[in-house]
């Protein structure tokens, strides 16, 4: 046999098209007779719509229509964004789409938006999270809501805890409360040698994909609605459109175009707008959000407030953990991260007793949505800050404290489920071996090192794939998984290895809902683990067809054949051989004797494959200005098996960098009336090249038993503990513990000087 293809760094398969500008993203396709839409966004955080004055806009050159909720052929009731792409009678956040101006050009649509006048009757805006949940708080939404949306299950295959049984006096804005408990926490903390606590605040944060959301919809002559779109999931979008518009299921075809970044944010937000407009006007319509629209009208990650208390003993054992976590859902009545965040706040550790509560609260800010490891970075920020403080109180080394309590396979997690294969010990040990860790007590004044660990449980969803050899002799992998984070490049290696083909003779095609094998949305760190497993089986099935044909052709039993680099040959007699290309030509022709070399594979993973990562961050703090400069960052992550280490490292660095953004830069802020103050990249900072340090990647491989070649989903784990590591580094550098993210220079300076912190 030739050497394994697994674990070899190679360029992404889509790289040549992307460096030459050949890739067509969703905004790039040519459509005959295309109309362009712009959104009229609510200027009020909470109001009744008295009326929408369209006439002035309709007088303008090029404006074709001004559509409001009543004009879209929505059949579904409810308040989720597919059921209510445009606000009906009540707007519940500033930036909510109220009307759609459709025009012959983008410029004309923009002219039209300026001319539309919406008459609002303002209602009390609920913008303070803690006030929102107090009994007597005004409701953030008056209209009766109906929980809807299937999107929650996409993001994590974890249970969301039990509904809170205890009666607590809460306002109707609290849409959900979950609790997990075991043992007597009060007693456990009482018996601890040290107990530390804190209240931690994280703001709304924006996925900030560089490609704004865009969707184009048109009707085929037979009435089929075709939607070409920037989405993480074609089938999930088809389902949402089916529920929204009530068309025959087979009259909806969704094409997931190459994504210009998504990070959890691209799920059926713009598609109902484009589809609704196309259905209303019977003409092709493109909704390409401007960045300004995207900032206001999409679905960023929740703000959270976490009250956390943990205890430990001098021998380095963690005892009890008590958490109360408030999650701002904005207008999202369908789901929230209170379940997952209150699970992940326990971290990758064993606890003797725990009491973890999460509350999902509606306010008049945004519609909450998923963003890379939803709810996890804020949980890790709180926990890992306190673990460091506890270590100091107990006089225990912070790494050894984590190591001693790290979950291992067979432990029971706070979910009540047994812990599957888990690499927490391994990643912490790799950090301990890193030369930077040895320098932690000998850094110059003003510098500090911070350690933090965190994990993402990973998700599961049944999936299918097809592998076939085409008449050009290329093995074609066909799936419906949106190519996010380079999953197609992973499929290429899986299929090549399983089939016996050089990777450069494998192509990967992402197909649409009309013809593709089923795949769930690309999210929850599950694609490689689930769709990848289906690709593996499909390649094996195709290989069986190949061997059957070769066996007849060469008159050798299939068991005595091997496939090496695209050639089928007799084991031990390599000159008795036939190429895959030749066999496929013999199969794919009139009068051919062999079945097409084509296999179908499916997977239904049931075991979880969590990925855990530990970070080490090295910072220098300018005490005069409050600026935090990152000097170096190290991440060690258990990736199961690195199918293509270059892409794995890409996820690790990219995730760590987004975590650095959370730590230092990123915040969506509103004024007291709920209007967005940071609605452009002039105000909302993401990490730029000169603010990101070199990031060392330490790949740790603890194979996932059910993953393809041991691989697991790895996209989300690297963001989880990155902010916490930076926070701990700042504490090490300055002695000051920051309880609010991001750690902007004014906030750090205020903390250092004991002056009032900016809000």
């Amino acid at each position: 046999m030739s050497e394994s293809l697994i674990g070899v760094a190679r360029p992404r398969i889509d790289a040549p098209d992307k460096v030459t500008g050949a890739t067509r993203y969703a905004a790039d396709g040519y459509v005959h007779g295309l109309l362009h839409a712009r959104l009229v966004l609510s200027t009020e955080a909470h109001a009744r719509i008295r009326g929408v004055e369209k006439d002035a806009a309709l007088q303008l050159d090029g404006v074709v229509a001004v559509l409001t909720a009543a004009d879209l052929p929505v059949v579904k009731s409810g308040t989720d964004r597919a059921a209510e792409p445009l606000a009906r009678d009540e707007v519940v956040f500033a930036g909510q789409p109220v009307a759609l101006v459709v025009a012959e050009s983008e410029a004309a649509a923009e002219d039209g938006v300026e001319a539309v006048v919406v008459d609002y009757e303002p209602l009390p805006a609920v913008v303070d999270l803690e006030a929102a949940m107090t009994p007597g708080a005004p409701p953030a939404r008056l209209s009766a809501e109906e929980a809807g949306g299937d999107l929650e299950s996409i993001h994590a295959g974890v249970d969301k805890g039990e509904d809170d049984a205890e009666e607590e006096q809460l306002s109707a804005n609290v849409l959900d409360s979950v609790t997990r408990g075991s043992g007597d926490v009060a007693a456990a903390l009482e018996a601890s040698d040290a107990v530390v606590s804190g209240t931690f605040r994280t703001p709304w944060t924006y996925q900030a994909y560089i490609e704004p959301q865009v969707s184009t919809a048109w009707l085929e002559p037979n009435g089929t609605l075709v939607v070409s779109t920037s989405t993480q999931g074609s089938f999930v979008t088809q389902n949402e459109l089916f529920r929204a518009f009530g068309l025959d299921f087979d009259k909806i075809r969704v094409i997931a175009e190459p994504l210009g970044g998504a990070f959890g944010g691209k799920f059926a937000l713009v598609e109902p707008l484009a589809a609704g407009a196309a259905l209303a006007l019977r003409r092709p319509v493109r909704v390409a959000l401007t960045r300004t629209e995207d900032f206001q009208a999409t679905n960023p990650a929740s703000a959270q407030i976490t009250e956390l208390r943990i205890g430990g003993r001098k021998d380095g054992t963690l005892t009890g953990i008590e958490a109360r976590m408030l999650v701002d859902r904005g207008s999202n009545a369908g789901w929230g991260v209170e379940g997952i965040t209150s699970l992940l706040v326990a971290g990758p550790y064993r606890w003797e007793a725990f009491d973890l509560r999460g509350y999902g609260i509606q306010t008049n800010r945004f519609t909450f949505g998923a963003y890379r490891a939803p709810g996890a970075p804020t949980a890790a920020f709180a926990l890992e800050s306190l673990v460091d403080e506890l270590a100091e109180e107990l006089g225990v080394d912070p790494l050894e404290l984590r190591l001693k309590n790290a979950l291992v396979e067979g432990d029971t997690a706070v979910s009540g489920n047994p812990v599957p294969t888990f690499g927490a010990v391994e990643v912490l040990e790799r950090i301990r071996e890193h030369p930077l860790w040895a320098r932690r007590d000998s850094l110059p004044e003003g510098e500090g090192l911070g350690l933090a660990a965190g994990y993402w449980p990973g998700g599961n969803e049944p999936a299918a794939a097809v592998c076939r050899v085409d008449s050009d002799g290329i093995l074609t992998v066909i799936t419906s998984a949106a190519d996010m984070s380079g999953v197609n490049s992973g499929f290429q290696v899986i299929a090549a290895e399983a089939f016996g083909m050089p990777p450069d003779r494998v192509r990967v095609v992402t197909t649409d809902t009309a013809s593709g094998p089923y795949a769930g949305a690309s999210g929850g760190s599950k694609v490689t683990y689930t769709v990848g497993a289906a690709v593996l089986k499909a390649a094996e099935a195709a290989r069986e067809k190949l061997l059957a044909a070769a066996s007849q052709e060469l008159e050798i039993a299939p068991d005595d054949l091997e496939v090496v680099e695209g050639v089928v040959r007799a084991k031990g007699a390599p000159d008795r051989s036939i190429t895959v290309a030749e066999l496929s030509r013999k199969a794919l022709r009139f009068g051919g004797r062999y079945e097409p070399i084509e296999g179908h594979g499916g997977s239904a993973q049931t075991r979880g494959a969590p990925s855990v990562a530990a970070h080490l961050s090295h910072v220098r703090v300018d005490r005069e200005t409050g600026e935090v400069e990152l000097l170096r960052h190290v991440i060690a992550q258990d990736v199961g098996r690195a199918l293509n280490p270059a892409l794995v490292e890409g996820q690790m660095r990219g995730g760590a960098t987004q975590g650095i953004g959370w730590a230092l830069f990123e915040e969506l802020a509103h004024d007291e009336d709920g209007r967005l103050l940071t609605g452009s990249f002039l105000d909302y900072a993401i990490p730029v090249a000169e603010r990101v340090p070199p990031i060392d990647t330490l790949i740790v491989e603890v194979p996932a038993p059910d993953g393809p070649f041991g691989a697991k989903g790895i996209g989300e784990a690297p963001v989880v503990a990155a902010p916490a590591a930076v926070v701990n580094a700042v504490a090490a550098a300055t002695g000051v513990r920051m309880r609010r993210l991001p750690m902007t220079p004014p906030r750090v300076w205020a903390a250092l000087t004991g002056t009032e912190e900016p809000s």
Partner: protein
Amino acid sequence: MPEPLSLVVNGEPRRLEVEGRTLLVHALRDGLGLTGTHVGCDTSQCGACTVLVDGRAVKSCTLLALQAEGTEVTTIESLAADGELHAIQRAFVEHHGLQCGYCTPGMILTVHDLLEHDHDPDEETIRRALRGNYCRCTGYQPVVESVRAAARALAT
């Protein structure tokens, strides 16, 4: 009111009609079908729309099309000659300098400008030069490595 615009795009003389308010990026994408130049923000931050005008990197969303009258515009589509990737493009492929790829054409053209004037930039210079090109996927390090590799390739 449409006005005539003539310029050289990717070596070819082109004539088209644009409005006074038409931005160069829209003239390239909608007028000439050159969709490798991307729109990522409204405020001249992200750099996804970067093209070369007379050899210098500029943000084509912050330039009226009519301001480019008589200039030579180079977009990502013309960088590879005769099917051979430009050294910068090859470096981005080989050193994993991209993921989603949306920022990549702009990145490459900014780097083209940088390397025209600085044949051996150090890491700090590269990171500073990329201040106006946002990437949300890579963490920039592979981009920096790609630029260094491109500089080495161009030097030989």
